[in-house]
Every structure is written in C-alpha cells, then in structure tokens.
C-alpha cells in the first residue's frame, strides 16, 4: 500500500530537475523587482532556454481530422501562419461561462488575441480552430470565419500566468506575458450589431432612471424580436453609478428593456422578468452597440463605446 505511494513519488522524482545553482539564486537576488517577479525572472531564465527551443522547433501541428468523431479527445496545439500564432486548447465539450467580448487582433508575439478596453489578451481557442493561410482570419467550430479586426463575444475566462496544464498548449513567452483569455467551445459569436439594434431610436434614447447615486439606462425594447447575442455577467455599477454587468475584468453598461425601474431597495426590476440585486449573475439576449450622447457620457463612456442592449427576458445565470 504505502509502497504504491512511494513508487508514485519515485516516478515523479525520476523526472526532477536539477536544483538551481547558487549563482542562479544569487543572481535572482540582485534584482530589485518584487518577490513574485524575481521568481518569474528565474523561471524566465530557465524557461527562456526551453521556449527558445520550442519556438525554434515550432511547426504547424494542427488538429488533423477535425471533421471526425467530435467525442474524440484532441490534444492542444499551436498553429502558425504568416507570423500569426493560434493557441488551441484540448478538445472538450465544456460550455461557456464568463463573458469575453472584444476585437480580434494580432497581439504581442503574434498570438491571435482579443482586445477589449485597450488591453490585449492572448486567446486560447477551442479545439479544432484553424487559421487561414494568410493568418488573418480564424475558423472556430460552431461559428463562422472571424476576421482580424472583427468584434466577437464568447464564453470563457481569464488566466494570469497559468501553470502548465495538459489542457493548454505550450504558450510562447511573448504571449504568456499577458493575461490569457480562455475561449470555451461552442461559445464564440461574431458581433451581430454592425447596425444598431432595432430598438435604438434617435433622440431621447435611452431614458435615464435615477435612484440616488445609481442610474439605469432604459431603452424601448418591449418584447418583440430582438438580437440574440449572449449578455451575461454579474450585476454591478461602475464609478458613475451606472448599472451594468461585470464579467471577469470586463464591465459593460447595460441598456435595459423598456419599463425597467429601481425597486424599493435599489433592486433592478425588469418587466416580465424578475427582480435582480447587485451581485446577481444574470443572463439575457441582446446586442452590443457603439453609442454616443450625454446619457452615455455621464456613465463614463466616450463616444463610440459599446454598451450591452438587452432585448430579451432577463434571468438569473448559473
């Protein structure tokens, strides 16, 4: 019994690396960078040699037959086309979670990334994703081709300096310096609001409903057909008191369905849906639209910023 545990440790320690030398330890000490960065500095020294080898030997190692049995397990891989690097996670059927919205861009190090609120996140895409020959667009299973520069929405989450994991590909050093956006399978949606939602009228949109410091931006959707992009996150308010949703590091001001108001205890009361409190996880359909105007400026949104326009019932998220 205990032998099996000892054997397991034997196997682990058989692959043990050599301890850092005294010179490596003391050279790390010379740095005045914060403690965590000193650790990274050392890791970078070791990893740098490894990554140089990885980058030098990085060849296209795509998914192979991605049209086969979708239940088969596919290993993570890295694809490179014309200097663009695509990071792809292990195959899985796991679903979406936090909202990731942003513009597809080629980030530092060439990694296909998502740019949102001025920050770039190297993205790890669902298994089966492939780059076009020119490296300027990506095909993601369950979605259409997405061009660099297009706006997308997806489920997933953010990781900072992740440990190596069998579900992740080898992350090139340049891309690993940013927080990674992990894109969940079957969750990628191109932005559907290249034209404003049908509910966006001209002047007077949206109404502003105040309750002390808090304010709701209320549109005119009244139950008809609407846009269906997923809007999900935790109900929150920004520094200007405008109610919106937070998903990870991303906060998006919401334009609520017509008739939405504050309850007695500052709950958000959505007609035909329910009552929600700050901190509730909510889900809805709708669209993302660039806006301008005083109501949005007062919410801290420069002209051209995107807001989430809800055009469906709102329900509590999972």
């Amino acid at each position, binding site marked *: 019994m205990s032998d099996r545990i000892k054997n*397991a*440790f*034997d196997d682990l320690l058989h692959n043990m690396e*050599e301890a850092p030398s005294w010179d490596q330890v003391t050279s790390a000490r010379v740095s005045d960078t914060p403690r965590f960065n000193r*650790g990274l500095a050392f890791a970078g020294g070791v990893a740098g040699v490894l990554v140089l080898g990885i980058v030098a030997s990085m060849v296209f190692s795509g998914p192979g037959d991605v049209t086969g049995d979708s239940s088969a397990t596919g290993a993570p891989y890295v694809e490179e086309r014309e200097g663009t690097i695509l990071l792809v996670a292990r195959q899985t059927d796991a679903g979406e979670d936090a909202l990731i919205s942003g513009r597809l861009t080629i980030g530092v190090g060439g990694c296909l990334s998502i740019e949102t609120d001025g920050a770039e996140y190297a993205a790890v895409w669902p298994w089966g994703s492939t780059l076009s020959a020119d490296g300027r667009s990506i095909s993601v299973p369950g979605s259409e081709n997405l061009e660099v520069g297009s706006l997308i929405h997806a489920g997933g989450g953010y990781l900072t300096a992740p440990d190596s994991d069998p579900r992740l590909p080898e992350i090139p050093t340049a891309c690993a310096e940013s927080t990674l956006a992990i894109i969940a399978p079957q969750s990628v949606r191109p932005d559907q609001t290249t034209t404003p939602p049908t509910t966006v009228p001209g002047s007077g949109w949206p109404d502003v409903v105040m309750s002390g410091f808090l304010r709701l931006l209320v549109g005119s959707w009244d139950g008809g057909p609407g846009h269906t992009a997923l809007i999900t996150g935790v109900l929150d308010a920004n520094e200007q008191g405008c109610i919106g949703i937070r998903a990870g590091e991303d906060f998006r001001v919401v334009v609520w369905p017509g008739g939405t108001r504050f309850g007695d205890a500052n709950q958000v009361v959505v007609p035909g849906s329910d009552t929600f409190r700050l901190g509730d996880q909510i889900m809805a359909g709708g669209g993302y639209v660039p806006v301008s105007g005083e109501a949005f400026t007062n919410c801290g949104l420069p002209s051209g910023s995107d807001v989430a326009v809800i055009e469906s019932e709102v329900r509590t998220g999972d």
Partner: protein
Amino acid sequence: MSDAEIYADVRTDLMRYATALVGVSDAADVVSSVVTRVVARPGGLSGLEDPKPYLMRGILNEARMRHRSRSRQERVLARLGPELPGGEHDHVLDLVMDLPPQQRAAVFLTYYEQYTAPEIAEVMGCRPATVRRYLHLARRKLKEVLDE
C-alpha cells in the same frame, strides 16, 4: 559555513521536497524564490540555527500560495473539461497531488523520506498531533488506493 556551502548541502533535498509539493515544472522556481528571500535577509542562511527545516517551511508556504493560485486557475480551466486520466502510478500520484499542500507534505515526508511525526512537525512548524491529523485526513482520501 558560508551561505553558498549551506545551500550546496541542502539544495537537492529542497528540490526533492519542492518537486513533491508543486510538481516538476515549478520546483526550481519555488526553491529559487524561497532561498532568494532568505538570503536577502540580514544574516542570510548562515544566520539561521537550522536552515534546512526553515527552508522547507518556506517551500511549504510557497506551495500553499501556489495551490491557492492553482485553484483559481482550475476554476477557469474546468471550462475546458477534466484533466486526462493517466496510468496507474499517475493515478496514485494524481490523488496525492490533489491533496492540500500540508497533507501532501506529510504524506511525502512519511512515505518517501521516512520521517517520524516529530521530525515532520519540526519541518512543518506544527505539533506532532497536527501532523498525525494531516496524515489521517490524507489516508482517508487515499483510501481507495491504500485499501486495494
């Protein structure tokens, strides 16, 4: 003894302990981080009465910090599905590596390094009774392996 000589004496033991606690890929970074912090203090390694257990406590603390970070990572990576199953030893090792760091340390020091409970208590900076508690909890979680 100089700091360099003290480190030369214990570096392999520290590396083995760190590997057991955080895995192969992170062990060198953990050892480097811990030793760097201690060396930077007045007195350095040579100022410590017993450097090895002190450094091992530092490694355990670093492992616990990374375990918390790893837990946060796991919540995101769970969206990519469970980790792939490995072979038999991998399965045993996976179970051990899934233990909280204190329990993992107690298991490693008991089953691999053959330390006694008082010796482990000194390394972990706790009482022998606490070590036995960690081992009890770990054995209960590993029961499916130990009882086979």
